[in-house]
Each structure stands twice: as C-alpha cells, then as structure tokens.
C-alpha cells in the first residue's frame, strides 16, 4: 500500500509540474490534478498523517512552481477538511479500510466527494492568489474553469484506474 501511495505521489507531482501547470484552457482553467493524492488516501488513515502528507504534496508543488506557501496552505486546509467530508459521503457501516473510488463509494457519492473537495481547493487557492492581482470577473471565471477541468481530469484518471487495475 505504502509503495503504491509513494508512486502515486511522484507520478502526480511529475504530471502536475510537467504537464498540467502549463495547460491553461482559454487562459482561465488550470487543473490541480495533484489533489487526487489526498482524495485517494485510504479512508481510515490517521487524519494527522493525511494532513502532513497533504501539506508535503502542496510544498513540493510549490517548490517546483515558485509559489511558496500557496499550494501548501490550500492543501493543509483541504487535508484537514477531508475527514469531515468523508463522514458525509462515505458510508460508515463498512468496517474495513478502503480507498475512495467509483467502486467503494457509490458512483454518485464519489463524484460528489471529488466535487466538494475540488471546489474548496480551487476557491481557496484562487482567493489567496488574488491578493496579488484582483479582478473579480476573472476570478470567478478562473474558479469555475479550474473546478470543472480538475473534476473532469480526476474522474478521468479514476476511470483509467477502474478499467486498468480491476482484477
């Protein structure tokens, strides 16, 4: 399990740094695929570990993108809130540990879980970012665009997973 998470961490960092940081659809939508790492940590994992791992992910993305503190602060907040959101979306009567996915959460629930997490992430990130340059209309466009793109990409990765790794 641990190795699988570790590989996912590196893969997502490289994807984000090499590919998705450079893609800006219509100049407004940027995808934050690295969020998938936090989404995909096991449900029963200690929340402190989830928090630290999320923060670490944000910090690494920051170091590559020269945006020190930006992604990290967002990931700290998202990593903290994940526990409460999982309470909402994951059914509690399953006792064994599992990774959130299309299979383990009923389809609709998984999309809602991803959607809520992404929305929180994107809104906070753009609010912090807009301290340097403020333009309300563009801010809303960027939040909406990034939200849609990120949710679509995370669901796309998930569907690759479903087809590829289903034994």
């Amino acid at each position, binding site marked *: 399990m641990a190795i699988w998470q570790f590989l996912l961490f590196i893969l997502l960092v*490289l994807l984000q*740094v*090499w590919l998705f*940081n*450079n893609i*800006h659809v219509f*100049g407004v939508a*940027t995808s934050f695929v690295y969020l998938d790492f936090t989404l995909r940590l096991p449900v029963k994992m200690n*929340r*402190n570990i989830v*928090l*630290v791992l999320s*923060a670490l992910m*944000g*910090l690494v993305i*920051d*170091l*590559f*993108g*020269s*945006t*020190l*503190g*930006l992604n*990290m*602060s967002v990931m*700290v*907040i998202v990593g*903290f809130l994940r*526990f409460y959101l999982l309470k909402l979306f994951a059914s509690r009567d399953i006792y064994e540990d599992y990774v959130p996915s299309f299979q383990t959460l009923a389809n609709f629930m998984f999309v809602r879980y991803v959607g809520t997490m992404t929305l929180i992430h994107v809104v906070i990130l753009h609010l*912090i*970012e*807009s301290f*340097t*340059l403020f*333009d309300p209309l*563009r801010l809303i466009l960027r939040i909406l665009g990034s939200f849609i793109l990120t949710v679509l990409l995370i669901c796309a990765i998930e569907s690759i997973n479903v087809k590829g790794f289903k034994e």
Partner: protein
Amino acid sequence: MRNLVLFILKNIHWLLFSLLAFCSFYLLIYNNEFQRSKYLSAFQEMAGKVYMVSNSVESYMNLKTINSDLMQRIAVLEHEVRDYKKEVETLSELVYPMDARKHESVYLNAFDFIQAQVVNNQISRMGNNYITLNKGALAGLKEDMGVLSSNGIVGVVVNVSPHFARVIPILNPKYQPSCKIKGTDYFGTLSWDGKDSRYISLKEVPQHADFNIGDTIITSGFSTIFPEGVLVGTVEDTFKKKGDNYNSLKIRLFTNFSALSEVLIVTNAAKEEQLNIEKGENDE
C-alpha cells in the same frame, strides 16, 4: 492533569493543523525573501534537472518559431551594421583626438553578455511567474543581473545555484523596471496585469508626454541591471483612469515569452562602482 493530556491528545489534529497552516502562511507572506534565500538553491538544482527533461522535448517543438525570430533579428542587425559602417567611415574622416574615444569605451564595454538556455518557463498563474536557466554561479551568474532574449527584455536573475539560475521576468508584478519612450526622456514603470503574455502596461507616464501609437519603448538605464536602450515593445494603445494624472500605455512586447529558449545575461563590470558612488551620495 491527566484529563488535560487526554484532551490535547484527542485534539492533536487541531494543533497540527494550526502549526502547518501557520508554516504555510508564513511561507506565503515571506515568499519573496525565500525566493532569494540560499535554502532554496539546493532544491533548485534538483528542480532544474527535472525541468531539463521536459525542456529537451519542448525546445524541439519551438525550433521553428525561434529560427524565424532569429532570422528577422539578424536582418535588422545587418541593416544596422551597414548603417554604422557608413557612419564610422564618415566619422573617421573627421579627425578626433583618440583619447576621447578611449574614455568613452570604458563605459561601453562595461556591459558583457553570457549565453544561457531556458529550462523552465511558466507564464501562467497571475503574479507568480519565474524562469529557470541552465547556467548558474559556476558560469559567472550573480543575483540582480539582467536577462535579455534575442528580441528584447526578459527579466532579472533573483537566485543562483551552482548550475541553475532563477529569473523573475517582467511578466511578474513583483518586478517593475522603469522604461522610457524611445527618442524622448519620458519614462514610466512596466507592470503586468496577469492576463496576456504578449502585452504589458507602462504606467505613470506623464500626461504631457507626446508619443504615437507604434512608438518603441526601451529601458531607461536608470538601474545598474540593464544598459540604456534595451528593446521592450511598441505602443499599441493608451488609456487613462479617471482622476489619474498619468497615462498608461498598452505595450506589445518584442519578446515572445511563450517560446523563450535562448537568452543572454547582462553582466555589468561597472556595477559596483556605480552602486558605491550612489551609496556615497546618500550617506552625506
């Protein structure tokens, strides 16, 4: 006492959250200082290597635009060379005392250039653009050196590690050099609005400054970073905020930031001297 310990243990996630949040906000607020700090340069070496992989792919894809850019630039320079040759010929016929020319050249030779390649260039997020170059302290790069492309201004070196350097481009609101309209002495501050990487605005130009659409904007040479006359762009449009005493100009940049690969770093041998004398004046 035992209850207190239990309470803290039970709510340790809050403590951890506050701690991490504090750290990240601290980084966020003191971002600029950290960019200049030495702690980062170790990581920068690593990041530079990671970016070199993606750059090797990208540079092939950009070759075509770069070639055409270079050809155009060569054409312009050849014209200039021809003009200068003529000028030299006419001038050399007049007899100048040789000493006077030698003194002039001390200033002219103060600026030298080092060539480097861009390994990472993200013109993306508002306010947070940086460029990584494949040369660092070992090649003689230092902080606060100017960076040019074959077409015009790029930015300033902010941090160097042994093999890489990080550049803050003019497409980052944190860096606002002063520039002027070619042929006049009216100057203003360049600043980017975070929207389009092809345009930049020149702010705080006096209202009475006369200029035309299409005029060239060059660096003012007030700082020790760039020599005077580095090309920036052409005036595309002008606008003025209500109640503002200054004009703002929309500038079309000569440098194509989306296909940047070869750059020149400006070294200024007379920099120390200039800074020292400026400092001396302030002390009095």
